[in-house]
């Protein structure tokens, strides 16, 4: 942990985005997490993604629960809105916030304890309701703040730092998100920003519930031999199915890749996801059923599948499903929100 603030001096060639901000303008306070924590890399990836997407910091709301991961919003987007919820309740708070103001960009950051244990129900309902948000689980498979007990995402058979073996089945949040109806599902690794940054950018520009399970080694309690979430283990077993480029320009791009190797997905907001397929698999991220099968097969072989695993670019979000007005509710006047007895009587009459 460092006590000093990060120096304000920066590289003289540091570029600005279209809003005139540098990457440094998207940073937060210096992290107080353990040195080398994977979460810090995810924070850095979020900073880069928001900078590259030219997002106005004051239009972003970052929300989290409790845990090492949930501390991280302090360490990025220092000029954005923030909310540190009760343990596991981040998804519910995002749901409420999104209902009240649909115009903000919602970024939920959680951990495996926060989302797979105490907040599992909250997580499930945010996904199935299609809350328009980016939901990142910083998944280190361990309770770091309480000194290294197995968490609900620890793999069966994994060894703790003290030598104990995990006997319980692991919760696979990617599988759950797919099953619950998330319309953007990805898995990545904190040690691979080349993959992670485009995924966060794509998730932020996705309309609907976008879920990223990001494996993030805990250098203090879960980076040893026998761990399945250590830097070495994840690097050895990482099977990336695709490589993503996010193109936000509105004009059409010319695709010069061999057909079959590249797929272009156009999202609601006009952003284009260019997917380059990797490896031997002919992975199709639009086929939810096939995704289940593929993930199960590879899991059985001990591989960790990463990349954009499922996307429905034309998905509806919670507001579409509820038919709410396009004007954020918090901008409506009291008169509009409470139109009075006559309107209520009319409504009641229509239901009789």
């Amino acid at each position, binding site marked *: 942990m460092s006590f000093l603030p*990060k120096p304000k001096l920066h590289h003289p*060639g540091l570029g600005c985005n279209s809003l005139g901000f540098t990457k440094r303008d998207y940073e937060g306070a210096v992290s107080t997490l353990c*040195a080398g924590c994977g979460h810090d*890399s995810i924070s850095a990836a979020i900073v880069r993604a928001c900078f590259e997407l030219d997002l106005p910091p004051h239009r972003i709301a970052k929300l989290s629960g409790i845990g090492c991961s949930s501390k991280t919003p302090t360490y990025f987007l220092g000029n954005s809105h923030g909310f540190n919820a009760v343990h596991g309740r981040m998804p519910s708070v995002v749901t409420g916030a999104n209902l009240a103001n649909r115009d903000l960009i919602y970024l939920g950051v959680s951990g495996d304890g926060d989302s797979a244990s105490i907040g599992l129900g909250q997580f499930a309902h945010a996904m199935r309701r299609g809350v328009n948000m980016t939901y990142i689980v910083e998944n280190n498979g361990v309770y770091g703040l309480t000194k290294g007990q197995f968490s609900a995402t620890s793999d069966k058979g994994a060894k703790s730092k003290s030598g104990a073996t995990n006997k319980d089945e692991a919760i696979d949040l990617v599988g759950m998100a797919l099953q619950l109806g998330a319309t953007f599902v990805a898995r990545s690794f904190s040690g691979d920003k080349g993959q992670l940054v485009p995924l966060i950018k794509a998730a932020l520009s996705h309309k609907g519930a976008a879920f990223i399970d990001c494996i993030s080694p805990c250098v203090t309690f879960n980076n040893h031999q026998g761990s399945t979430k250590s*830097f070495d283990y994840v690097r050895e077993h990482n099977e990336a199915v695709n490589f993503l480029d996010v193109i936000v320009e509105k004009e059409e791009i010319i695709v010069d890749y061999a057909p079959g190797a590249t797929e272009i997905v156009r999202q609601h907001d006009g952003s284009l996801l260019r997917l380059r397929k990797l490896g031997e698999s002919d992975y199709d991220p639009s086929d939810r059923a096939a995704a289940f099968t593929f993930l199960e097969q590879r899991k059985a072989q001990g591989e960790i599948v990463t990349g954009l695993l499922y996307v429905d670019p034309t998905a509806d979000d919670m507001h579409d499903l509820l038919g709410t007005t396009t004007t954020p509710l918090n901008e409506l006047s009291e008169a509009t929100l409470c139109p009075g007895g006559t309107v209520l009587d009319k409504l009641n009459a229509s239901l009789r």
Partner: protein
Amino acid sequence: MQPTNITDPGFFHKVVDCQYACPAHTPVPEYIRLIAAGRYSDAYMLNWQSNVFPGILGRVCDRPCEPACRRGRVEEQPVAICRLKRVAADYKDDITARLPNVPTAKNGKHIALIGAGPASLTVARDLAPLGYDITIIDDGNAGGGMMRTQIPKFRLPDSVLDEECGYIEHLGITRRYGERVNSLKSLLDENYDAIFVGTGAPRGRDLDLPGRTEAAENIHLGIDWLSSISFGHVTSIGKRVIVLGGGNTAMDCCRSARRLGGESVQVVVRSGFEEMKASPWEKKDAMHEDIPILNFLVPKEFTHEDGKLTGLIFEKVKAEYDAKGRRNLVPAGEPDIHIPCDDVLVAVGQENTFPWIERDIGIEFDKWGMPIVDETTYRSTHEKIFFGGDSAFGPKNIIWAVAHGHEAAISIDLLCSDKSLGDRPPPHVTLASQKMGIHEWSYGNEISDDRRYLVPHAEKALVLCNIKAEVELGFDPVLALAEAERCLNCDVQTVFTENLCIECDACNDICPVDCISFVDNGDEDDLRTRLNAPAQNLTQDLYISSDLKTGHVMVKDEDVCLHCGLCAERCPTGAWDMQRFLFNTAKATDKAGSSCCKS
């Protein structure tokens, strides 16, 4: 690229930009830390060992360190290194007890030094503690050479000169002041074991233009005129003065003229303002004293009436650049202008002159009349005769003379010990971890956001009426501390140990200047384009690791590293460490060990 060999002192030496740029390689960050700690005497002695004249150089050094300072690449202004050096000199305690002991038993070798300027005094300082019998011969009445005669007192008071020349003169040195060497041959006959020539570049270049002889009475050569002021021979000048030339001597001339009665003093330069040789701060100080600098004017003729100078005619020129980027001054096609004046000071350059060296004693001269001197040993083609300072390679600055003096002293010592002059001692280098705790270092790694502090000046009205009143007042300890905190401690190196790295990216995430990258290896040109921030400053090296587990290499662009140590603080395995790199060039005195300096 091949992994960087950090055991070669050359690599980290280059990272300490200020020290690398200093001809004497003074360990700048080390003494700035001492100043910040209030250890002024220690800071002074560190300087004294390296550059011999901290108080003098703290005022009038040409400061090659400052344009090199890394701080100037990450914000607007470098650290005021020169002014901090002066703080050490101003606030030190009495250091005489820390000066070297001079052995009572001499080693039997006799050395003559011609000229008592910075080069000769450095040789004396280095050799006297080793038991050499040193004789300095100078035609002046006091030591210091051009530092005393040519630098105006309002920039360098006599008291500072007396003190620092005195430290050396009192090392048991025989002074033959007031004696001019008119024949090197006859000096050789005195059977010295070695002779060092440090006579500077004493002749001012003249301008042979129409009217020069007729108006001679009011046309003065800059350095001669400055010397005359220093000796008290000149005490006034006309009201309207033109100074020709764009170097530091011209700046000294115009500012001196302002103090001796010049009401309208103008500097006229052939070239543009930016290309002038004078240091930027000297130009600024001159302009602050209401002296305009007129550029792109070439003098054509001195005008005169009844044998009295009336002014100068100038041709207007403009700069044109040829295909190779070379500048040519061509006529601008505008009418000539006449600037009336009462006196002209010509400061258009200095030359060496050696009428007192016989051409048949074994010293070879080149076609420009300069002695042929070896650039490493400073020995001429005569086995026992050495040159240094301006007399070796033409006009430079004091700090170069000091650097030459150190090397010549080593050569003389080797010569007198019957050793090869090529067998030069290596620099002293240490590299030591500064880690004190998990996030604690034995240096202040918090980066100050302060901008460069201006050094306080005496009131203009007061200094303009007294040519001996020093203009710069120097930093007080409070300002000095604030300025010292701006130093980035570039000598505290980031040292990377490959086999400890787990490639967690923590260092590259935290680095405030994006100088650390983990990428696939490649050749240098290619690598420089693929880093987190492109490494476009080709004068700064890349620090490359060997292959890491993933096949990537760590590449650090040394260009704008703040040495804040956050990479090491955020590193979970200690793969990064902050290690202080101390580099001291070897001195002849070193073998006497503690006799050089008692600290």
